[in-house]
């Protein structure tokens, strides 16, 4: 059987290698500013992985809030406190060894779990036409266009309805009993908005107290 390269898998490999490599780089490097930069690349690649998983809204949110907002804030903090002794702080090697042992065993457990469910180890197969040699030449693009991997995903509207308390993706569930658990997210949404407001006021208050203390 002819098996073509799946570009979805190719980009998954690319982004996952970027994300993992730069996450490891964040751990290994001692310079705090470089750490921040590696973190940016790692989280940006994670956004790419979100896009590949069909979550385009979440991917864009990740780029906007995480990479564009949170990390700029973080780098701001780094630059405000970046005096020579704090730019690169070394960790005693005993702590490194301990952390490596704990992290390694945690990773082993997580990898074991990740591959223990058979239904998860392989994604949905490509449409039949993609596997024939003629398919790659002619009508494969037709068949692939309807594959969820390559069709543009459209989740923004559903997410918006979900945040307003309507689950337009769960309409097929007729049983009110099982529908009760999948109501919308209006209350959490409101709580989060008030929470953000409180955080904003709190952060502003802390920043004000800072000036008073220094006078």
């Amino acid at each position, binding site marked *: 059987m002819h*098996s073509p*390269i*799946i570009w979805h*898998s190719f980009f*998954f*490999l690319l982004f*996952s290698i970027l*994300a*993992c490599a730069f*996450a490891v780089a*964040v751990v290994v490097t001692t310079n705090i500013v470089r750490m921040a930069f590696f973190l940016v690349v790692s*989280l940006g690649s*994670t956004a790419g*992985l979100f896009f*590949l*998983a*069909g*979550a385009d*809204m*979440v991917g864009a*949110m*990740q780029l906007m809030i*995480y990479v564009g*907002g*949170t990390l700029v*804030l973080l780098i*701001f903090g*780094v630059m*405000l*406190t970046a005096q020579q*002794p704090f730019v690169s*702080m070394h960790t005693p090697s005993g702590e*490194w060894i301990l*952390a490596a042992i704990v*992290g390694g065993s*945690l*990773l082993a457990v997580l*990898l074991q*779990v*990740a591959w223990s*469910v058979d*239904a*998860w*180890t*392989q*994604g*949905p197969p490509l449409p039949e036409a993609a596997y024939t040699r003629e398919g790659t030449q002619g009508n494969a693009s037709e068949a692939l266009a309807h594959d969820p991997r390559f069709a543009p995903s459209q989740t923004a509207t*559903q*997410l918006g309805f*979900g*945040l307003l308390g309507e689950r337009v993706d*769960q309409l097929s569930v007729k049983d009110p009993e099982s529908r009760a658990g*999948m109501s919308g997210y209006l209350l959490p949404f409101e709580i989060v908005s008030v*929470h*953000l407001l409180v955080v904003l006021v*709190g*952060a502003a208050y*802390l920043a004000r107290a*800072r000036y008073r*203390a220094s006078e």
Partner: protein
Amino acid sequence: MNLLTQPVGVSHYLVVGAVLFVCGVVCMATKRNALGVLMGIELVLNGANLNFIAFGSHVLNRAGARTLGLDGQLIALFVIVLAAAEAAIALAITLNYYNNQATVDVDHADELRG
């Protein structure tokens, strides 16, 4: 087994999520700079987010399989928003600490020890 010719499943995403999570945990444990610890937290949250997205994705699961559906994406959104709030507060605390103690080394934050 060639990864390029094989459709990506949930497990692949879980592996990436696990690596990010472990990197974050190790980062939190080993860094002495308070902002470095904060970066570790961000990595941990992203590893968890990746799992939520993978469990809810219709791209990675076979048709008809039971998935988290939209809930996965919604939870991921809330995690992102809460992470932003957490970073803002943690940064304010760190700056305050830096102003009072003239250091960002978390090992020196032991004034409350009895």
